[in-house]
């Protein structure tokens, strides 16, 4: 079906455009933001992909692999869809990859269904995406996957009451639901669930409100960058740490912005699937190569999602070449050692089953930099939001 579609379309296009690539080159189209406020993610994806290629060569099985990058700019489903169309029809890619934002990933569902193109999501973390097409595979995480184990861990540590403060948009609400469900299932109580407007810059009112309620912990979910910075500052300066209200989060202390948070970040506790400070051979090898190629690069969730995504694509190409359905079938049973630790594909949800680590921000004595020090593994979990 797919070949037939491609052949028909190619016939139309071939009259106008010479097909440059040789027959045995398999192309992978990467759709990500390379300009605008989110450009850093596209850059990180590309760096991680190139790191993987530098380590493993440009061929998988009998096939050569070539990556084509397309700039989607930001959260822009229409643009995402038309870029996918362009990649599938004009560039004749056999695989799609990338996708930072959920709407961008969702927008290509009808296209990949029709063309049977395996599509590897490097980030977009809403559980429901993979329901929309059997050709979606995800190498990041879902919010349920990290928030629910964090709630259980907090209860096990003796925290009985918590307030949740999440940014009022899709992923934030996912995180709030996950935390609340898991915390209350254990017997804990969520005393206040605050949804903060996306445009918030001054978090003092929310933090002060939490402080007045004096729960054992405050769970936070914020989009990366500036909001995280002001939130964690406010958390410290308004004396929540001193009052014994524990900070619990997920991506808030991610590596790219961590140094910017400064000493205020020390002691913040988060649960996440990757820490740049993860102590393993695979992580050291990955970061060594990454920094050899790109001295300024900082490994975080975006790099590791793209790195593992590239691994998945290589495995699929080696196993099935251009046969989309067979490639997805082959991917479903894969297990490997990622820089984040051991991972395997969940055959139903097509999202990784992986460790979730408890991390605490500390200053590394050797480098003098802030790191997310792993203080424990909570669980090996799949996508807990799949059946929600």
């Amino acid at each position, binding site marked *: 079906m797919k070949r037939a579609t491609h052949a028909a379309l190619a016939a139309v296009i071939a009259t106008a455009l010479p097909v440059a690539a040789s027959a045995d080159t398999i192309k992978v189209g990467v759709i990500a933001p390379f300009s*605008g*406020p989110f*450009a*850093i993610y596209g850059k990180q994806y590309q760096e991680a992909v190139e790191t993987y290629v530098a380590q493993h060569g440009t061929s998988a099985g009998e096939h050569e692999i070539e990556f084509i990058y397309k700039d989607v700019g930001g959260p822009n489903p229409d643009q995402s869809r038309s870029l996918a169309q362009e990649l599938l029809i004009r560039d004749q890619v056999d695989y799609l990859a990338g996708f930072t934002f959920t709407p961008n990933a969702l927008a290509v569902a009808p296209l990949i269904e029709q063309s049977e193109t395996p599509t590897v999501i490097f980030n977009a973390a809403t559980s429901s995406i993979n329901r929309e097409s059997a050709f979606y595979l995800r190498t990041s995480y879902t919010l349920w996957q990290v928030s629910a184990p964090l709630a259980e861990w907090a209860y096990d540590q003796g925290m009985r009451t918590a307030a949740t403060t999440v940014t*009022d948009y899709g992923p934030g609400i996912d995180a709030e639901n996950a935390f609340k469900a898991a915390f209350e299932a254990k017997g804990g109580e969520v005393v206040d669930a*605050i*949804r*903060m*407007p*996306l*445009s*918030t*810059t*001054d978090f*003092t*009112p*929310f933090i*002060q*409100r939490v*402080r*007045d309620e004096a729960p054992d912990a405050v769970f936070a979910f914020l989009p990366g*960058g*500036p909001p995280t*910075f*002001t939130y964690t*500052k406010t958390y410290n*300066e*308004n*004396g929540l740490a001193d009052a014994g209200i524990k900070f619990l989060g997920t991506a808030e202390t991610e590596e*790219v*912005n961590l*140094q*910017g*948070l*400064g000493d*205020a970040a020390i002691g913040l506790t988060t649960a996440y699937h990757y820490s740049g400070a993860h102590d393993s051979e695979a992580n050291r090898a990955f970061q060594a190569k990454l920094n050899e190629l790109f001295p*300024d690069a900082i490994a975080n969730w975006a790099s590791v999602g793209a790195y593992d995504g590239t691994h998945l694509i290589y495995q699929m190409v080696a196993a099935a070449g251009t046969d989309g359905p067979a490639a997805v079938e082959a991917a479903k049973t894969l297990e490997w050692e990622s820089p984040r630790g051991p991972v395997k594909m969940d055959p139903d949800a097509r999202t990784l089953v992986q460790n979730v680590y408890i991390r605490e921000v500390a200053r590394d004595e050797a480098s003098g930099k802030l790191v997310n020090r792993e203080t424990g593994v909570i669980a090996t979990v799949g996508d807990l939001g799949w059946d929600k």
Partner: protein
Amino acid sequence: MTLLLNILVDGVAYGMILFMISVGLSVTMGLMRVVNLAHGGFALLGGTFAHWFAADLGLPFWPAAVLGVAATVALSLPLERVIYRRIYGFTDLQQVLATIGLTFLMIASVNLWQGSSLLSIPLPESLKASVDLGFRTLPVHRLVVIVAGAAVVLGLWALLERTRFGMRLRAAVDNRGTASAHGINTDLIFMLAFGLGAGLAALGGVLGAEILPIDAYYPLRYMVLFLIVVAVGGMGSIAGSFAAAIGLGLLETAARYLVPDFATIAFFALVILLLALRPNGLMGRVA
């Protein structure tokens, strides 16, 4: 009662930061009559220079802040001479387009120079500490911003109303030709006023960085906020900007305490209502 005091304290602190950042825009847009959408860009430059001096070159906070503002002013003066001088004569729409273009240039330059991640300006211990107000604690840097904001209001008022420079500036804006004929060097006056606006933007960027953190996309992220303060205050009115900033700060803070889920809607609804009643802002002059 405590809730009310909380709203009051946080609202004034937040409002003062809004004022610090927007007052420069009120100077260039209202007094000089140039639609300067690149205003946020100057705040970004101030913050970026301060970050560079403090984090990369290792200077303490205060020298870095002063140098950051100075560097921005130093950059704005030739910019005024070469580019803005042409922009003054444009129509409103052309001014909007030209200054938006400048904003993109600034964003791209900062992005190229410092990357697109957070550009923090490390605070000294003395500013990071908290003061006990009795019913709660407040970070020292917020108090510093409140004091700085008050100083700017008084300083600007004195400068514009009580000095020869202020008099000449007002004359030059009202009728450039006549002012020139009276021997006022309007080119110089405009350049200095523009430098003042840029310097205030930079100062606001640096001091406000704890609440509106600096990164390459800063001007686009907060442009709406600056424009709202100026629109509500009334263009060209320093006192109006001040009243608007404090009022909006209190309103938004109150909404965040009382109805967090609707804080943004409440804020914009009030702004719309106010502008419907007073289209020229609180203290706007009718042109």
